[in-house]
Structures are given as C-alpha cells and as structure tokens.
C-alpha cells in the first residue's frame, strides 16, 4: 500500500464514499500495522464529534415566511419526516380505503404520534385500545366510519380490538395488512428495522402481504407473521406471548436478537444514537430482559456477555470490540 494513499482511504471511509474494493484494501491496510488502526480510530473519533446546534434555523423559518407574507405552518420539529412517511403510506393504501368504504365523504383523518421514549395509550371510537410504541404514528378516519375499521400504522403498536363481527378491524402498514374481528396482537413496522411483523397474543388474525393479495397467513396465539425486507413471501414463526407487549410496561425483552436490532430498539426508547464500530458486532445475539435500567446500564450489561467497549459522547454511544494497545 502506498503511504500517500492512506489518508485518502481514511477520508473515503469516514465520508462513506468507499466501495467494496476500497473496503477490502482498507482492511488490508489496517491489518498490516496496529498504527493504522489507531490512526483511523482517532480520526473517526474526531469525525463523529457533533457540531453544536444553533437556534438560527428557527429564525430562518420565521424570516422566510415573513418575507413571503405567508403564515408559518403549525407543525415543527422532526415530526415531518414521519409525516411524509405517513403521507406516502396513505397514498399506497388509498385505493384500499376507497374500495372498502365507497363513501363520497372526504376522509378526515385523526393522527397520533409518539416521540422517542414515549408510549401512548389511545382509545379508538369503537372501544378498541391501542398502545403506540416510541417514534410511531397511527392514523385512522375520524369515527372509524366505513364498512371496515381501517387504521394505518408506521412504527409499532399493540392492539386490543373490541369485538364487532360485522366490521373487520384492519391494520395497514406499508408491507402488510392484519385483519381481525376482536383480539390482542402487536404489529411492528418501523421502516428502518428492515422487517414488519405481527404477533398474536389472543384470538385469531389474518395477515396479508400488502404487495400480494394471495399471500396471507392465519395466526393462532403464540405465532407471528414476518415479512423481511427483500423477501416476497410472509413467514410464520413462533413467539412468546409474554414478550409481545412487554414494551407497553416499559420492559425490553430480547430473545436471540441481533445487536443491530437491539441497538435500533434502544435508540427509539432512549432517543440516542448507537453506532457499532465494526461489522463483527452485527453477528452478536442476545437474550435478555430489562426493566428500569438506563441505557448506560443496559449497554454495560450487554458488554458483560461479549467484550466490547462503550464510548459515550453526549447522546451518542459508540460500541467497539477493537482492543486497545497497553
């Protein structure tokens, strides 16, 4: 490896510009000499330091609307990202609502959202209860009017559905639809999780693949339907009914769950950023149960089972298995 190339390689790695070939040659470089690994570690530490946020943005928004003579819209903050996701979701299922309802009334939607760390209990007009997990959005036509009870979910929610044999209750996500008459079940459809799942605690549900009407599975309690990103068919597997709604009570349960999936759940619950420094860690799997522990405590407990280091910088946690030179 030519010496003068080294910094360009670091640069491409840090700026996320490297392709697979470059990854390989960087790996080769790093395995040559501990010095290089130390260098890259120090640099990525600096690279990941955060720029302090200012409140200038707020003033820019105000100024711009003033200059244009427009009223500033009410919604603020990062909510809009999920708002956009919700609109996309609404569009993708709009056809279904239309077919299901066949009313001429314009649809007025009721929407509820949770931030990181929040769990909200929502009563629906039909008497059903929804527990909305962190960073999730749910919306439904006002009054749940129509021939079906349609609700739209982006994120995770546990449903306790009031029985109404004539009016099925359908949870729409971008990947699957879960149809029930009255039961208790959980749907998880975070778009950064790479999978959508529906787990049944009680009763009976039918789960449809949103992209393929003839692909559906029926679940009995203790079963779950899973649709992974890039997969075309629904999978049925087992789940522990006790774990399904653990998050409602603030508990976190993992059963043979990979560290990246755990990290995403913890990020949502604690509003933090968790970075896994090396790909080896993505293979780590855990079975664990947490109740009141802080994020720091959880990470150090995970750390006991496998030896890695936890570095904290503000709200950012960096996990690394790289060994330090003594």
């Amino acid at each position, binding site marked *: 490896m030519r010496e003068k190339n080294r910094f360009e390689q670091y640069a491409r790695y840090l700026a996320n510009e490297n392709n697979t070939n470059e990854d390989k040659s960087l790996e080769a470089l790093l395995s040559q000499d501990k010095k290089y690994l130390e260098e890259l570690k120090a640099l990525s530490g600096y690279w990941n330091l955060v720029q302090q946020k*200012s409140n200038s*943005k707020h003033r820019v928004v105000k100024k711009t609307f003033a200059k244009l003579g427009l009223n500033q819209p009410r919604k603020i*903050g990062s909510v*809009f990202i999920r708002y956009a996701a919700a609109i996309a979701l609404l569009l993708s299922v709009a056809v279904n609502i239309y077919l299901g309802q066949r009313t001429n009334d314009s649809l007025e939607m009721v929407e509820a959202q949770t931030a990181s760390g929040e769990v909200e209990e929502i009563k629906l007009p039909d008497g059903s209860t929804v527990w909305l997990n962190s960073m999730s959005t749910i919306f439904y036509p006002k009054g749940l009017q129509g021939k079906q009870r349609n609700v739209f979910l982006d994120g995770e929610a546990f449903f306790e559905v009031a029985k109404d044999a004539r009016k099925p209750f359908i949870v729409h996500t971008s990947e699957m639809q879960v149809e029930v008459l009255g039961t208790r079940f959980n749907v998880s459809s975070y778009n950064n999780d790479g999978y959508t799942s529906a787990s049944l605690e009680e009763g009976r549900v039918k789960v449809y693949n949103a992209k393929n009407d003839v692909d559906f599975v029926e679940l009995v309690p203790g079963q779950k339907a899973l649709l992974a990103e890039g997969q075309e068919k629904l999978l049925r597997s087992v789940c522990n009914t006790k774990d399904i709604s653990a998050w409602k009570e603030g508990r976190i349960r993992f059963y043979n769950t990979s560290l990246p999936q755990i990290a995403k759940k913890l990020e949502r619950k604690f509003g933090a950023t968790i970075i896994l420094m090396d790909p080896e860690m993505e293979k780590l799997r855990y079975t664990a149960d947490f109740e009141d522990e802080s994020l720091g405590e959880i990470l150090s407990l995970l750390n006991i089972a496998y030896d890695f280091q936890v570095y904290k910088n503000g709200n950012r946690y960096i996990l690394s298995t790289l060994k330090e030179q003594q």
Partner: protein
Amino acid sequence: MPLLQQMVLRIQSGDEQALHDLMQEMADELLLFATGLVKSSKLAEEIVSDTFVKIWHKKRKLHEIRDVKSYLYIITRNACFNHLRSSKEELISLDDIQDFQLPAMHSSDRESFQEEMLELIHQAIDSLPPKCKMAFSLAKIQGLRYKEISNIMGISVNTINNHIAKALELILEALNEHKDLTPPSSKKLLSIMLGITL
C-alpha cells in the same frame, strides 16, 4: 422517492408545509456553509432565508432541478459571493475566496485537556487553504457526498478526495504532537477523542 424530492414536488403544488419541512431539513447545514463564507451568522440567516424565498418564487420550475440539495447550496453560495464582492462590477468566484471559516466543534465533556486538543486540531485545519477547508467542512460537518460537494464547489471528485485526505493528515499530525506533550496511552487518546464518560 428521496425525501427532498418529495418535498420539492409538494412545494411545486404550493404546499406551504412542504416549504417549512424543507427548511427544517436543510436550513442548518446551509447556515453553516453561508457562515463559513460570510463569517457572520446574522448575515448568513438573511442569505439562507433568501434562498428559500427564491425556491418558493420559482416553485413552478422546480421540476427542472435534478439535485435539490446542490441547487440550494449553489443559490446560497452565489448569494454569499454577491455579498463578498466589493463593487457591483466585480465578479467573484471560488478562487477569490480568501478564507472559509470552519464551524467550531464541541465535545460534551468539559475537560480542559480535551478542549486544548480540539483547539490544536482546529488550528491545524485553519491553516489549510480555503477550498480545502470548505471541502472538509462540507464532507464532515454537513455530511455531503463527494458528488454533491463536486457540484457545489465546481471541482472534481478526485480533488475533493485530496483536500479531505490532506485535512485528515494534518489532524493526525496535531494529535501526534499533542501525544508527545503528554504521553497518554492510545486508550486515553481515544477516550479523549470520543469524549468518554465511562
């Protein structure tokens, strides 16, 4: 469809919420960029707000823009250049830029040792040519892709690669110098860099 593209489509149809969303997404990084060029946050706010005003006025033509992010940067960059030229006749380009101010980095930890080290790194980067600093800032602080930086600065991806590599080299030098002053173990060094509170 990428999120920014979605917003632009909504802006095109006159959706004011979408303009708001676009500002929420982009204003911070445009402010850092403009402040780097004009070195006044007040002025930068004015310039960036004008950028969004222009977007709104041009909303019917937005479909012609392929790369929204670069476009926003270029409008902002030109407004900064306009401000920097001393007379109406004079035209300014990237080559005439005397300096680019790198935003200060902060660590959550308040150790003076750490501040000292950041200061050292900052000085090292500050000694770089303005274009090199700008490329570094756009990649590290704004998190832009090389392709986008290339659009904004009008220089090749290869040159950007060199600029950023050069900056990293200097940072590492500064780090090593510091290591000589107070010889910490590599672990300590890393913990300083990452701002650990283990």
